[in-house]
């Protein structure tokens, strides 16, 4: 029998599956979730893009790879954040002022 672990235990530090539904253990009364889709100029979702979350000073905070549907998700804190996406289709940025709960933001790469 294998020990049961989840991505938010001490054992793990890698980014979980970006397309998976929010785990039931995530408390939206406490979490500030920043989520959205990376799209190309054509409007097509970009899978496999590298999305970095930068804090208000431009410092790197986290990075995830978008799901087949182009989705990404971060657990941050209220405040201003920059999203920076790198992909084979090009790169792009977006800024979001996040508050507690779910914050939607899209990033276009060109």
């Amino acid at each position, binding site marked *: 029998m294998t020990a049961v672990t989840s991505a938010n235990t001490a054992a793990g530090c890698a*980014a979980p599956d970006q397309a998976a539904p929010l785990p039931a253990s995530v408390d939206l009364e406490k979490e500030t979730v920043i989520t959205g889709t990376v799209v190309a100029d054509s409007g097509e979702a970009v899978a496999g893009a590298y999305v970095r979350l930068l804090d208000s000073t431009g410092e790197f905070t986290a990075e995830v790879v978008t799901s087949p549907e182009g989705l990404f998700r971060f657990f941050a804190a209220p405040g201003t954040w920059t999203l920076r996406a790198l992909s084979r289709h090009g790169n792009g940025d977006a800024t979001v002022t996040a508050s507690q709960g779910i914050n939607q933001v899209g990033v276009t790469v060109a």
Partner: protein
Amino acid sequence: MSRDTALVSADWAEKNLDASGVVFVEVDEDTSAYDTGHIPGAIKLDWRNDLQDPVRRDFVNKQQFEALLSERGIGNDDTVILYGGNNNWFAAYAYWYFKLYGHGDVKLLDGGRKKWELDARTLTKDPVSRPATQYTAQEPDLSIRAFRDEVVAAIGTKNLVDVRSPDEFAGRLLAPAHLPQEQAQRAGHIPTAVSVPWSKAANEDGTFKSDDDLRQIYGEAGLDDSKATIAYCRIGERSSHTWFVLAELLGHQDVKNYDGSWTEYGSLVGVPVALGDEPGKA
């Protein structure tokens, strides 16, 4: 150690995919990326299932490491090229294990999986198997591994480098921002630790910055060359990245990785903790 002995470029890797005595190894915590396509000929190591003890909080011991490498077909004389996702964090962690167990020739692929993908280099789903070997590991080299008592004793005496993000350092976040934040441990950092996020050492494509840039970054952060250094993060993999930079690229002496890191330290009863953006006092 130096960049020439510890690091290979993606161009070098592409030219040496079939070179005899060279083994490419993809290392990740979530190895599903390997299954969707890997560097041709590369085998995989699962950071959790292959490299962690399944019961205790520790990594594999000498015998487990020998059995693993023998079964995967890595020989003592092979040149091992490690790469992975997450900006090579887990590959750097594996590099540190290979060094700890005395492997002769091990290198990181600069930029890891990210640069390889962004460059649109070849990935394949072809299964890879290598004939088993009889791998012999050395006794663990504890001169590169720090334990908690040593870390507490290092407060105010050695260089402590906290490589987590500024918000984790200050205690505003408990985990990297791609993970939920509820954790058992207290927030903050080890008093007197300087904050140099691992990401300062890397370009956005995942490659390492130049030696001159790296020297300047750690110099300006107040790292004292004449002192021993202990690097830590949350679980020890981002600090392996910084350990690699300090020990293997810049050649600093007496650099240790504290793999217990904040998930251990932040749960210890009675140890000092500093909050806020400043290192704090001993």
